C-alpha cells in the first residue's frame, strides 16, 4: 500500500540529516508575555497593511493595529495588551530596516483572550470566507507568506477538486508543524472542513512525511467517518513540502510552468494555516501567536514554543537557556531556506518557523573548489534545472542567459548547494543574480 502512495513521488531532491529528535517529543509551551514586541508591517507578500494606531495608544491583545488597503494584504493584530511605544524603522531578520510598530506589554494585564463567537461559517459565501481570513491576518505559514485569502478567490469557472494540507515539514530540525498535528489535530481537520465546505472541494489530502508516524496516526484517529479527508504518508525527502513537489507526490500532477495550482482545481495550505483558520472561525482568535521550534546544537534547551508575534529572537533564546558560547550562526526558519540573522533583536514574524543556532562545526563554510562538473546538483534539483550552469552564468552576470536556463522556476530550496561537493554557494549566487535582475527592471520601468 505504501509503495503505491510513493508512485507519483517527485524526482530528484536530497536527503539531509533530519535532526528532529532535539524537539520532536517536546510538547509546545506558551511563552510568557513580557517586554517589548516589534511588529514589522510587511509580514505578507504584497502590500503591507497600514497602521491604525498611534504612539501612546493602549491596545488589547487581538486588536487590529494595521489594516490592509489592498487585496494582496492582510490585517496585523496586537499580540499583547499594552501600549504602542513607537512606529518607525526597525532592523529585521533580513538585516534591512523596515517600518514596524513597537508595543510594550502591560505587565499587569492578564493577556487572556476570550473566545468571541463569529458568524456561522456554514452560511458564508466564498467572498465572505476570503474577507474573514483576511481580517484574521492569516498568511501562508509554510514560508511563502502569501495572504491566505488570495488563494480562495477563484478564477471564473474554476472548480476546486482537491484541498491539500501540507504537513510534510521537510526542513531538518523543525518540528512545529509536527507538534501542531499531534497537539491540535482537530483544529487542522476543522480548517480543512471549513475550506472544503465553502470551496465545494471533492476531497482533502493531508501529506505528512513518514518521520511523523505519530502525527499521521493522530490525524487518522480524529477523521470522522463521513469526512472525505485522507492522510497520505510521504517518504522523507527534501523538498517534499514545496507546493509543486507535494502536488506531484500526492496527485501525480505536474503543475505547468507559470500556472497557478488553483487554476487546476488544487488549493494547498500549511497545517498551521488551517489550524489558524479554524481558530478564527470557531473562537474569533486572530493570528497573533506563532508556533516555533527552537533547536540546533547551539541552543542549551531546545523547545517547541508558542510565542506572540514580534517577540525578539533574544528573548526566545533566553527562555531556552541561552546560546552556547561557541555559537556562530543563528537562523530564523529552517537550515535549508532560513534567514541567518546578524542581530538577536530581530523579531519573530508570522512565517518564522524556528530559531536555530549552530556552532562552528555545522556552520563552517567549506573551502570552495572549482566546479568539477560532477552533476550532483543536476540530480538534486527537483525542478530539473542545471544549477551548475546557472551558477556559472550568475558569476559571469549573464542574466539574459540565466532566464533562458529557467532561473525563474528556481524556488531556492538549496538542494543543489547541499549536494555540491565543491562548496559552491549556488543558491546564493542565484539569489543575488535575481536581486540584480529585479533591481535593473525597477530602474528601466
Amino acid at each position: 500500500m505504501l509503495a503505491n502512495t510513493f508512485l507519483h513521488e517527485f524526482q530528484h531532491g536530497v536527503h539531509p540529516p533530519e535532526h528532529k529528535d532535539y524537539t520532536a517529543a517536546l510538547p509546545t509551551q506558551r511563552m510568557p508575555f513580557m517586554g517589548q514586541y516589534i511588529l514589522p508591517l510587511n509580514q505578507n507578500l504584497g502590500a503591507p497593511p497600514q497602521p491604525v494606531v498611534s504612539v501612546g495608544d493602549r491596545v488589547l491583545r487581538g486588536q487590529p493595529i494595521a489594516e490592509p488597503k489592498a487585496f494582496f494584504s492582510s490585517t496585523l493584530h496586537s499580540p499583547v495588551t499594552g501600549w504602542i511605544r513607537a512606529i518607525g524603522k526597525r532592523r529585521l531578520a533580513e538585516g534591512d530596516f523596515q517600518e514596524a510598530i513597537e508595543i510594550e506589554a502591560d505587565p499587569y494585564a492578564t493577556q487572556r483572550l476570550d473566545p468571541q463567537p463569529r458568524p456561522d461559517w456554514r452560511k458564508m459565501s466564498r467572498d465572505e470566507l476570503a474577507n474573514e481570513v483576511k481580517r484574521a491576518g492569516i498568511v501562508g505559514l509554510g514560508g511563502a507568506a502569501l495572504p491566505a485569502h488570495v488563494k480562495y478567490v477563484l478564477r471564473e469557472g474554476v472548480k476546486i477538486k482537491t484541498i491539500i494540507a501540507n504537513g510534510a515539514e521537510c526542513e531538518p530540525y523543525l518540528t512545529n508543524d509536527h507538534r501542531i498535528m499531534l497537539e491540535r489535530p482537530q483544529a487542522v481537520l476543522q480548517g480543512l472542513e471549513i475550506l472544503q465546505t465553502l470551496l465545494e472541494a471533492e476531497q482533502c489530502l493531508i501529506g505528512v512525511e513518514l518521520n511523523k508516524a505519530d502525527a499521521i496516526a493522530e490525524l487518522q484517529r480524529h477523521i470522522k467517518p463521513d469526512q472525505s479527508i485522507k492522510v497520505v504518508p510521504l517518504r522523507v525527502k527534501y523538498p517534499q513540502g514545496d507546493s509543486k513537489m507535494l502536488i506531484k507526490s500526492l496527485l501525480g500532477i505536474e503543475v505547468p510552468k507559470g500556472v497557478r495550482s488553483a487554476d487546476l482545481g488544487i488549493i494547498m495550505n500549511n497545517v498551521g494555516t488551517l489550524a489558524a483558520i479554524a481558530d478564527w472561525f470557531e473562537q474569533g482568535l486572530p493570528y497573533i501567536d506563532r508556533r516555533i521550534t527552537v533547536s540546533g546544537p547551539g541552543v542549551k534547551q531546545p523547545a517547541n514554543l508558542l510565542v506572540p508575534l514580534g517577540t525578539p529572537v533574544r528573548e526566545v533564546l533566553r527562555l531556552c537557556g541561552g546560546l552556547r558560547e561557541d555559537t556562530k550562526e543563528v537562523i530564523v526558519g529552517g537550515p535549508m531556506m532560513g534567514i541567518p540573522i546578524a542581530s538577536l533583536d530581530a523579531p519573530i514574524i508570522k512565517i518564522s518557523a524556528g530559531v536555530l543556532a549552530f556552532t562552528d562545526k555545522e556552520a563552517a563554510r567549506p573551502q570552495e573548489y572549482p566546479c568539477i562538473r560532477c552533476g550532483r546538483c543536476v540530480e538534486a534539483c527537483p525542478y530539473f534545472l542545471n544549477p551548475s550552469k546557472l551558477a556559472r552564468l550568475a558569476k559571469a552576470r549573464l542574466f539574459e542567459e540565466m532566464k533562458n536556463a529557467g532561473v525563474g522556476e528556481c524556488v531556492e530550496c538549496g538542494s543543489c548547494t547541499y549536494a555540491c561537493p565543491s562548496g559552491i554557494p549556488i543558491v546564493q549566487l542565484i539569489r543575488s543574480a535575481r536581486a540584480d535582475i529585479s533591481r535593473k527592471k525597477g530602474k528601466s520601468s
Partner: protein
Amino acid sequence: MTQKDPKLRVLPSPLLKQPNTSARVMRDVIYALLPATVAGVWLFGVGALLVLLGAIAGTIWGEYVFSPVAERKIRLGDSSALLTGLLLGLSLPPTLPIWMAVLGGLVAIGLGKIIWGGLGHNFFNPALVGRAFLLATFPAAMTNWNAPAGLATIYQSNLAWPFLQGNYDMITSATPLGLMKFQHHSTAFSNLIFGNTGGCLGETSALLLLLGGGYLLIRRAIDWRIPAGIFLSVIVFSGILWLINTKYPDPIFALSSGSLMLGAIYMATDPVTSPLTPRGAWIFASGIGFLIVLIRVFGGFPEGVMYAILLMNAVTPLLDRITQPRMFGTPKTNPLQPGKKS
C-alpha cells in the same frame, strides 16, 4: 541581559552540506587505487615504483609551476594533480625511462588541464592527454612490455638519460591484448584477474581494480552509470562479434584484459570530462565501450581504451547540451532542436 551576544556570522542558507567534498572525492579515488598500485609494484618491481613516482612528480611539479602563485596552495590542496599523476603512472609501461614519466606528468597538467583554465575547465582527461603525448612521441618506449619479474627489479631502461637512450635489447613479452591481436592467443582468465601478465604497471589486476571500484561506489565518489555502461556495451559489442566468429575475443576476455578496468572505473569517471546528466552518462559510456571494441578488433593498436575515452571526452559538451533534462512543468522538447516542441 548581562550575557553578551556571541559574534554572529551571516552565512547564507542552506547551512547543511553533504559530507563529500571535491578534495575528498579525489582522495577516495587515490585510496581506491592503492591496492592495484601496490600490486603493480609487487609484480613489476622497484622500477615500476620509480616510473610511478616520476609521473606524480611531473604532475605536481606542473601544477606548482603553471599555477598562479596565489592559487598554488589551493590547487595542490585539492589532490587532483596527485591523482592525475597516479593515474598516468599506472597507465605507463614499467620499463619506461623515468624522465619520460616526468615529462608525461608535466604535459598532462600543462596541456591537459592548466591551459584550459585549471581544474573543472578541461575537456580531456589530463592523465590520458599525458599518456597520448608519450605514446605519440616515444612509441617504442611506450610499447615495450615486460612480464612481471618480481619486486627487486629495476629495468635498465628506467634509468636512461633524457634523449640519449640506447636501444632496448631486453626480453620483452607481449600483453594479453597483443597476443590476442597478433597471434590469436588467449591468456588464462586467472592471470588476467590477478594481474600476472605483461602490461601497464597498474592495469593488469582486474580484481584489485574492481575492488577499488566497489569502494568508490560505496563512497559515492563516482557515477556508477559510467563503468556499468562501459562494461555492458563492451559485453554487447564484443559478444556480437564473438558470436559471429569465435576468432574474435570473447566478452570475458575483453572485459578483463588491457586497461579496460582502469579506464572504465577510474578514468572515464573523471567528473570534469564526463557528462553532467544521467542520460548523457549512459550515452558517453556506451560510446566508450563501442569504440574500445572497434579499436581493439579492427584498429591498428591492440588497445583502444585511451583513445575511446579521449574521443568521448570530446563529445561530452555536445552530450550535455542534447541531454538537458526537461524542466519541471514544461513540455518535452526535441533535444536536437532546443526550443522547439517535438
